């Protein structure tokens, strides 16, 4: 709602700290807000509260160890982060992993994406004030976590990947339980729509709020659902296909409005796509080796290597500069969270405090991914 009333009231701008301990920032992110009444004049993110120098630690560690560090970046797509490092090492060593590994990696990556989007959906509702969504989302997410637990023993930071393959084969129950989950969740997405998407208050809170234009999305380097909500086709799974994504049919979820609701609907659509990808793969997981043998001490040939993957938040790029030793000379992660966060000021300027919460939620920030 545009306010057209012009008044001669003298108002004073003031600063307010949103975070580092604030319920809406999803972690230790500090936003310095300049506010005039309820209207936001400027948002300045202050980063570094959870900086653990993961990139520097990578220079100290062997390539097998680096995989485990990436769990702690974007913990909600931990498997996909692991996969990115494994792929870059495999690329450098020119290892060809078996089809079985590729398919299992893809299925688990899509399950991870689903779990991440479920959590996002629950938290979005909570940020906007509908507290019940959180528990609905967790009910469904729990099934995925159980599958993961049975498969590799961990529920969130899984470390299922290794350079050259997987730690162990899937559990005998894996296929059955994944199918159960798909059947279950197919009935639950419409429930999500019923509870939140169709709600008039929710639509008023998100439609036309925080509009990111296509040009801005490109120039800020926004990725993932944030860019796709603004009509920028940026799905790495399609553009630079990896693992088993070339074997499946799926649509890239796109929306052109660029507002909060567009980003919301892109993610909901992505959930359907992920379900369809898993459905296509789950019935015919090919036989094959679970691991391609690598040396105990992996040494990458001298050179630079780069691998892009699509995490639940967007494009994760892993850059490795090797001098031929057992440790990388330099590792750089191009994390989706940081580039997506950079749009926040242009989105939130001129809107209300309540809008900022909705904007932050639909950008889907994971703070450890931003700080690394």
């Amino acid at each position, binding site marked *: 709602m545009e306010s057209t009333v012009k008044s001669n009231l003298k108002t004073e701008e003031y600063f307010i700290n949103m975070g580092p301990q604030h319920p*809406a920032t999803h972690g230790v992110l500090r936003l310095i807000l300049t506010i005039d009444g309820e209207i936001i004049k400027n948002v300045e993110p202050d980063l570094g509260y959870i900086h653990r120098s993961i990139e520097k630690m990578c220079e100290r560690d062997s390539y097998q160890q680096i995989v485990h560090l990436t769990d702690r970046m974007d913990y909600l797509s931990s498997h996909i982060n692991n996969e990115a490092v494994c792929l870059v090492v495999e690329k450098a060593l020119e290892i060809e992993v078996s089809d079985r590994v590729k398919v299992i990696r893809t299925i688990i990556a899509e399950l991870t994406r689903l779990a991440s989007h479920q959590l996002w959906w629950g938290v979005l509702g909570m940020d906007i*004030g509908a507290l019940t969504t959180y528990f609905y989302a967790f009910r469904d997410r729990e099934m995925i976590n159980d599958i993961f637990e049975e498969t590799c023993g961990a529920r969130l930071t899984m470390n299922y990947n290794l350079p050259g393959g997987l730690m162990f084969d899937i559990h005998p129950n894996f296929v059955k339980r994944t199918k159960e989950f798909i059947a279950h969740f197919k009935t639950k997405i419409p429930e999500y729509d019923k509870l939140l998407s169709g709600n008039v208050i929710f639509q008023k809170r998100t439609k036309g709020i925080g509009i990111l234009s296509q040009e801005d999305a490109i120039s800020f380097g926004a990725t993932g659902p944030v860019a796709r909500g603004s009509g920028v086709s940026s799905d790495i799974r399609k553009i630079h296909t990896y693992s088993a994504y070339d074997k499946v049919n799926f649509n890239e979820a796109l929306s052109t409005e660029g507002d909060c609701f567009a980003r919301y609907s892109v993610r909901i659509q992505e959930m359907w796509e992920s379900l369809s990808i898993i459905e296509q793969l789950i019935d015919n997981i090919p036989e094959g080796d679970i691991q391609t043998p690598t040396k105990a001490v992996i040494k990458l040939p001298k050179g630079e290597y780069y691998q892009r993957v699509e995490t639940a938040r967007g494009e994760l790029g892993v850059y490795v500069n090797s001098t031929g030793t057992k440790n990388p000379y330099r590792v750089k992660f191009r994390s989706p969270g940081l580039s997506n966060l950079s749009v926040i000021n242009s989105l939130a300027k001129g809107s209300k405090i309540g809008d900022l919460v909705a904007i932050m939620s639909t950008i889907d920030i994971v703070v450890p991914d931003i700080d690394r």
Partner: protein
Amino acid sequence: MSIPLSITKTIHDWLFSIMPESAASITEMVLIATAYLILFAVAGLYLVYLERKVAAWFQLRLGPNRVGPLGLFQTMADALKLVSKELTSTDRIDKLLYNLAPYFVIITSLTALAVFPFSKQFQAFDINIGMFFLIAVSSIGVIGILLGGWSSNNKYALIGAMRSGVQTISYELSVGLSILTMVLLTGSLQLSEIIEIQRTGGWLILQGHVPAIIAFMIFMIAGTAETNRAPFDLVEAESELGAGFHTEYSGMKFAYFFLAEFINMLIIASIAVVLFFGGWLSPFGITEGITWFPEVLWFFIKVLIIILLMMWFRWTFPRLRVDQLLTLEWKYLLPINLVNIVFMAIIIWLNWTI
């Protein structure tokens, strides 16, 4: 004569026999006030318990179930914990206002309860301007919220308090006007008389048909906003403002704010029951002839249904934004309400009431 009444009469007679008249009336007032305080503090605590249970049902959880059977003593334990906690405060606060604010809120809530006829005999004082008294008293509560937010030297609290001021002042109009619509129909401001009218003519929501139903809907919306509950809980929007106006309060002072919210919910539900659903009268007069039946039960059953409705709102809807909140009030509810009053007046004039 029912048993509770005979007990109070015995006490009344006994007090007046041992004391001079003025001292006896003062003692009686103090006794009644204490009884009300205890009764509604406990009622407030159990509303908190009910809310937590209802939230749990909505959210696939169990809710409190550890302290006592079914967790029935959970809120009691919470209150005890809050009583025993240290009262902290921030630096450079306005000490007087900061300490005064919670009392404003809780006292107004409890005072408003005095005029409700919970049953024929269960009413602290029956004044002929009951409805007016209710509106007047319940609007003082916002001062407490404003003072609390202003004096705690916290910007989040201040934003919460300002939101509350804006919200309560706006929605007060709708609450008042929808009450006025019904007062037009009854022709009385006295709560006990409003209920007596419904004994013969049926519930007011049926007597006044269309405008009464519109008034009820507006009253429920505005009443939810008055109590600062979701979807109008911008005052304490935890994802935006931390805890809003009571961010800096601790211990019992926080508990006062918290309890007042639930007692206000009770008040709004009670007004709705008195104005629209016949108060303590039984539906279709099914317990009319039974003398021993406690009519107060009907009142509380109806109140409970309305409260459950409000809880249903809270656990389903997202929160409105502050400008949308004001748009809803000034552009929709208020004009509809004004037209509705005229509509009601015409209906009464033409004698179309059922």
